[in-house]
């Protein structure tokens, strides 16, 4: 019998839940039942879940408890409930990628990510709302109801891993999986006030993740803390010979070596992402305050300048749009009127891009990646730090069709360079919306990124909460 009430379970992190499980103070079934109640209570308002798998979840939870009795746990996250962005294939469970065209799509194989989480003993609560075909959003006219930002329902959740951000912020789940091609983990993490990491490109297999742009897609975890992201990433990373973008390079487990120690850390404060490129003064000020916290923790801060955000943005946009169109061309030719307005416009643009545009963008990708990493080497930087987003989440009906052509995408550098990049919440704006910084690292140094993020979060616990 649990010493912890159901209402106390919702705010708990993966780390805390695993401790209570290990101490025998709660069972996986009790946690799962409490979160099922939470989802039933909150989802009608916030619409984070498209599909729930409660029967399966309770079965998996019971098996986890049985393993616990025999001291035969599969991993540190054995018994932890998770939910997946609906772009991840789950065998026998509808996976719509947020589109009415695929509303009856039931995969026959699991995605690599769910395969690994399942093997680690995670409990699948269901599939999360995402913007149609993972392309930005908000698609208010899409087939499925849009999830709502619990901080302000009139403002955008961010996308495309929108349901993940909302489910975490409202305590419906402690852990979720998102994907990120131009910011789709980091934007909802930032706008919903939770944590997320886009790992190094190729670190997590994309097998069974519905593609948006194979050159830029990244699979990654979202949670309420960076430590939780590390726990999840440890279970999902690893070479997958069945996917061509999967990296053979392995990295050591991250979560055992997380520390609050920043004394050896050198952080490059990117000073040229300013209001000239659309970044609000408030976001810049929040970034400065965060860097002061890192200095107090012993990190060394150096001022640096990267190429213009526009350079990263246009290269990212051309590659993503061209590749997305190539994936959807046949589907769209037959079904264009069934696709939401924003998705239709954004992907159709790809039909007009030329081979020269695409090749130039790919060459620019290499050049910009080389410049970025050369700068980090020359300044002996471990991390780069800059504002997480340009400013407050926009009002939900004011997100432009091609907003990324009006203002640059501050998330684009890390997609283009493949660098690990975490969204770390750093407080609230004057409009009482969550604010964040981005910490990006060198390739395969995801551990350093999460370690720094964890150190910051430990030093600023006041920013950790779920929305009641």
């Amino acid at each position, binding site marked *: 019998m649990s010493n912890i009430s159901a209402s106390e379970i919702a705010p708990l992190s993966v780390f805390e839940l695993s401790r209570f499980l290990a101490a025998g103070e709660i069972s996986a079934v009790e946690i799962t039942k409490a979160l099922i109640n939470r989802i039933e209570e909150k989802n009608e308002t916030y619409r984070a879940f498209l599909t729930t798998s409660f029967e399966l979840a309770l079965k998996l939870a019971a098996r986890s408890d049985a393993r616990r009795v025999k001291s035969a746990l599969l991993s540190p996250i054995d018994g932890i409930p998770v939910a997946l962005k609906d772009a991840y294939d789950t065998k026998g469970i509808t996976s719509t990628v947020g589109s009415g065209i695929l509303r009856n799509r039931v995969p026959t194989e699991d995605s690599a990510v769910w395969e690994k989480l399942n093997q680690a003993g995670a409990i699948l609560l269901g599939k999360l709302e995402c913007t149609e075909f993972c392309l930005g959003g908000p698609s208010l006219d899409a087939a499925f109801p849009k999830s709502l930002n619990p901080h302000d329902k009139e403002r955008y959740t961010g996308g495309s891993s929108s349901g993940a951000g909302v489910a975490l912020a409202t305590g419906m789940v402690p852990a979720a999986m998102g994907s990120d091609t131009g910011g789709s983990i980091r934007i909802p993490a930032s706008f919903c006030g939770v944590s997320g990491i886009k790992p190094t490109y190729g670190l997590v297999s994309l097998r069974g993740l519905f593609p948006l742009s194979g050159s830029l897609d990244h699979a990654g975890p979202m949670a309420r803390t960076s430590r939780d992201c590390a726990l999840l990433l440890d279970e999902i990373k690893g070479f997958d010979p069945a996917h061509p973008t999967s990296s053979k390079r392995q990295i050591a487990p991250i979560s055992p070596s997380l520390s609050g120690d920043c004394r050896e850390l050198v952080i490059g404060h990117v000073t040229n992402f300013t209001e000239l490129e659309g970044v609000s003064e408030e976001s810049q000020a929040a970034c400065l305050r965060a860097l002061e916290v890192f200095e107090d923790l012993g990190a060394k801060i150096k001022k640096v300048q990267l*190429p*213009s955000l*526009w*350079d990263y*943005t*246009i*290269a990212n*946009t*051309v590659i993503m749009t061209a590749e997305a169109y190539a994936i959807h*061309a046949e589907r*769209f*030719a037959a079904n*264009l*009127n069934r696709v939401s307005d924003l998705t*239709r*416009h954004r992907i*159709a*643009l790809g*039909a*007009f*891009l030329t081979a020269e*545009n*695409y*090749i*130039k*963008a*790919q*060459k*620019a*990708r*290499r*050049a*910009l990646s080389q410049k970025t990493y050369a700068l980090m080497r020359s300044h002996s930087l471990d991390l780069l730090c800059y504002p997480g987003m340009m400013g407050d989440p926009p009002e939900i009906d004011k997100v432009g*069709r*091609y907003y990324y*052509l009006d203002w640059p995408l501050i998330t684009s550098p890390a997609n283009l360079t493949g660098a690990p990049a975490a969204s770390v919440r750093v407080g609230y704006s004057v409009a009482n919306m969550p604010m964040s910084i981005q910490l990006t690292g060198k390739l395969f140094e995801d551990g350093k990124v999460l370690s720094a993020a964890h150190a910051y979060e430990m030093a600023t616990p006041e920013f950790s909460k779920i929305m009641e």
Partner: protein
Amino acid sequence: MQKSKLNQMGLSLDDWERLAEQSGLDITQLEKEEIYQAYLRVQELVKRLDQIVKSEAEPAAIFLAENFSNEQH
């Protein structure tokens, strides 16, 4: 549509309509106008990349023979 802007890019109105037709997408005239504006903006921004890469820069898509073996893939 701004004929002059299209002309600056070496595209006639007929060229644009042809591109739209070739796409096979059933887009309305209004959507063509909107996508066209985005297209112009993309071409304007893509010009920035000329400062970063020379046209003769190494191939964009790298095919490394060593990634493949004589084993069947």
